[in-house]
């Protein structure tokens, strides 16, 4: 799955467009950025397409700004060094915490505090503190998907919970959800492209997210991909994306299996716990009818109780921390699959148009229409973004699972340590008594 680091920005593809041979061009002509695009030297705010419409370039990920970026060799080299933001250069920190319940006449809901610290100039202030509810996170995610269709957006925890089955206001549920929201926001903030999205900016800083009116925003670039792609038949995926798809399927399956195993273990542990408790009480009740043996028997009962407590902690941790993260990854995989599908659509559109254009060219020798070139750009862009995101995703996945599994191992070690110390204290107790007895015998 590993892809060689692209030389340019995440969105600039394997090679700068300038160097790719256009399939419709004659062999000896090196391609220029295109005769119809006017490029400003050094400026990354103004670029104009042939038809005169200004291209919104405040987000560096929009396809059209690609041409501007190509000229800024310095920037490209700097960005080539890291695919994703390393902690030393991170300049945006976000946290989700402090859940509170709000009761209004219409509804009851939970809000979370979203705190931001940043040195970026895109933000007016260095610090922000706002309250957001799940709906707001959902809004953000939708906006990100719409405006950055070529990128993988991290998943949110499940939106709908069955009212009768799960208590939406229980401490555990809120805690689990909050951790997932925190993770979501951190992933977005760490993404080199998504973190500059103005919707994120608004989410983090605006006092009131006025969602219905929307912000004076953005490009229809993303939407055009969705609108058009529908009409074209899907082409076979290139091998590397195929491999990605297969990997995602298998990985998703394995995670499902692990989920089932973990649930089964929790169940078996719960039944074991029930029997263990009963077992402990038998020792206690036996102690009641004994004299010399009373202390040892009570000691055993107490050690068993210690083990019960330790086991409860272990099972709870598996339910609260392990399973939710696992399930979240399954959602993440689904998101990634969606992006792959969108990429397929964009490729389909391009190849469809290309075929049509080739046919026409053969007929009447007109030059290659601009739309086809634009499509090609989109596809290349998409592919590049996807590959880069894939790399990040793989790397994050590795870290996340390393942490998750190491955590699981730690909790189990912890459990056994507690049990061991419970039994060791019994032995100390009994041995002390033995030495007591011996000294009293010799006296």
């Amino acid at each position: 799955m590993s892809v060689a680091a692209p030389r340019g920005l995440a969105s600039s593809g394997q090679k700068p467009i300038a160097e790719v041979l256009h399939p419709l061009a004659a062999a000896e002509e090196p391609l220029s950025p295109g005769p119809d695009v006017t490029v400003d030297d050094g400026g990354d705010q103004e670029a104009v397409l042939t038809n005169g419409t200004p291209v919104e370039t405040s987000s560096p990920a929009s396809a059209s700004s690609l041409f501007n970026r190509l000229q800024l060799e310095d920037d490209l080299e700097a960005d080539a060094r890291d695919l994703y933001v390393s902690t030393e250069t991170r300049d945006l920190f976000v946290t989700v915490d402090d859940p509170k319940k709000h009761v209004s006449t219409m509804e009851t809901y939970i809000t979370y505090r979203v705190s931001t610290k940043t040195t970026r100039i895109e933000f007016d202030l260095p610090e922000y503190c706002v309250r957001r509810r799940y709906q707001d996170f959902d809004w953000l995610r939708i906006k990100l998907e719409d405006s950055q269709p070529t990128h993988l957006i991290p998943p949110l925890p499940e939106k709908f919970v069955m009212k009768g089955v799960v208590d939406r206001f229980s401490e555990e549920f809120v805690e689990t959800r909050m951790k997932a929201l925190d993770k979501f926001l951190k992933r977005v903030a760490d993404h080199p492209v998504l973190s500059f999205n103005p919707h994120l900016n608004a989410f983090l800083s605006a006092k009131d997210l006025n969602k219905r009116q929307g912000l004076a925003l953005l490009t229809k670039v993303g939407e055009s991909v969705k609108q058009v792609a529908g009409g074209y038949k899907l082409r076979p995926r290139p091998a590397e994306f195929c491999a990605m798809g297969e990997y995602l399927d298998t990985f998703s399956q394995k995670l499902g299996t692990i989920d089932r195993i973990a649930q089964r273990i929790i169940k078996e542990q719960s039944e074991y716990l029930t029997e263990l408790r009963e077992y402990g009480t038998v020792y206690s009740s036996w102690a009641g009818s004994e004299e010399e043996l009373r202390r040892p028997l009570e000691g055993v009962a107490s050690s068993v109780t210690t083990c019960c407590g330790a086991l409860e902690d272990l099972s709870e941790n598996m339910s609260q921390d392990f399973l939710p993260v696992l399930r979240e990854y399954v959602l993440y995989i689904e998101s990634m699959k969606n992006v792959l599908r969108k990429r397929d659509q964009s490729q389909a559109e391009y190849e469809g148009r290309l075929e049509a254009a080739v046919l026409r060219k053969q007929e009447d020798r007109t030059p290659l229409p601009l739309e086809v070139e634009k499509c090609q750009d989109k596809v290349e862009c998409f592919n590049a973004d996807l590959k880069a995101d894939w790399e990040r995703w793989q790397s994050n996945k590795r870290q996340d699972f390393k942490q998750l599994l190491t955590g699981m191992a730690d909790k189990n070690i912890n459990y056994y340590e507690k049990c061991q110390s419970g039994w060791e204290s019994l032995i100390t107790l009994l041995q002390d008594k033995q030495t007591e007895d011996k000294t009293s015998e010799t006296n």
Partner: protein
Amino acid sequence: MAEDGRDELLGTDGDSEPLVAGRSLRNKGVEQGCSLLRRMEICVAEAEKRSGRNTVNMQEIFTVYLIETRSMEAVSEGHNSAPDSLWRRYSEFELLRSYLIVTYPHVVVAPLPEKRAEFVWHKLSADNMDPDFVERRRVGLENFLVRVASHSVLSNDKILYHFLTEEHGWREVVYETGFQAKAESRLRALSATFRVRNTDKRFMDMKHYSDELQSHTSQLLRARARVADRLYGVFKVHGNYGRVFSEWSAIEKEMGDGLQSAGHHMDAYAASIDDILEEEEHYADQLKEYLSYAEALRAVCRKHELTQFELEMASQDLISKKQQREELATGIVRTFSFKGMTNKLFGQEAPEQREARLKLLEELIAEGEDTVKEKTVECQEHVERAWVDMQRFEEQKDKDLREALINYAVMQISMCKKGIQVWSNAKECFIKM
């Protein structure tokens, strides 16, 4: 357990001289007063299957156990001499024990290992032919012999000695003792329990305690079996992690090795429970021994009830005969009697008849007084000896069970350490992912 049996002796025969040099005594840790065990080393070395015809002439397969004995002199001189040995079946052990119980009713006789596997958790076989069961039974039989041979009273028994040394004809010798005739009938014992009046409080307390001991040990054994069952399930499910990690590692590049190795550790974890639970069976066996001991203790208490009851009956009988004599002598009828009624109805009898009856009564009274004396002695002796042995038993029980509990704790600690080891290994693999 064998060691404890030897150590835990109230030396009623503490004055008997050791028959071997003190050196070997000290080496074996044997204390004074256990005559048989001092003279010979006993062990149940092996078990074998035999086939033969049983009492109803049907072919059957049974297990025999090899009893090896060696005199202490031979042991102290060198280890070259082969031990004497003979084969015995479980039923012969049962016969020996029945004999001992009847012959020494004041002794809390060590129990045999269970006849059939009980308190079994699901994976363990309940089959008597299962090699693990046979092995544990072999150990239990050896334990029985050592306990019995180290008892100050039982160790002197000829039948026991014969059991250990003469393979053939032993059954006939046992039957010849006529011990079966002395065995109490259940009905008589039950009747005594209900009708006896002045029992020694200590014995009643002990009888009550034996009920408690039986109830608690059996509850514990049942609960332990259920816990073992569940624990088995928890461990085995972890084995699934091994498989899925292995499958997952196939699609990973950097994470692959770490996952694969971690999977192996999960497999090892799942497999480790078998040995852990097998070892715990030893603890269960110790509990089972004391479950059976509770019955033996109760038997001694019942014997007291019986002897006391017989004494009371004999005394009662004597009293009523004396009363009859008085009535005959004085003519005053104080209590209702058939004779009294017939006298009233049909008139007094002739003086010669009265003389005859009086004489008979005197004889009966004399007999009755002897009986009462006998019974008093019997009862008294039983109380004294049984009390001593029950004290011995109590000390032995406290020591044995305390050690068993400590060993159980040690086993648990060992299991925890294994768990920590496995998960630490897995953690190492995860860190390397």
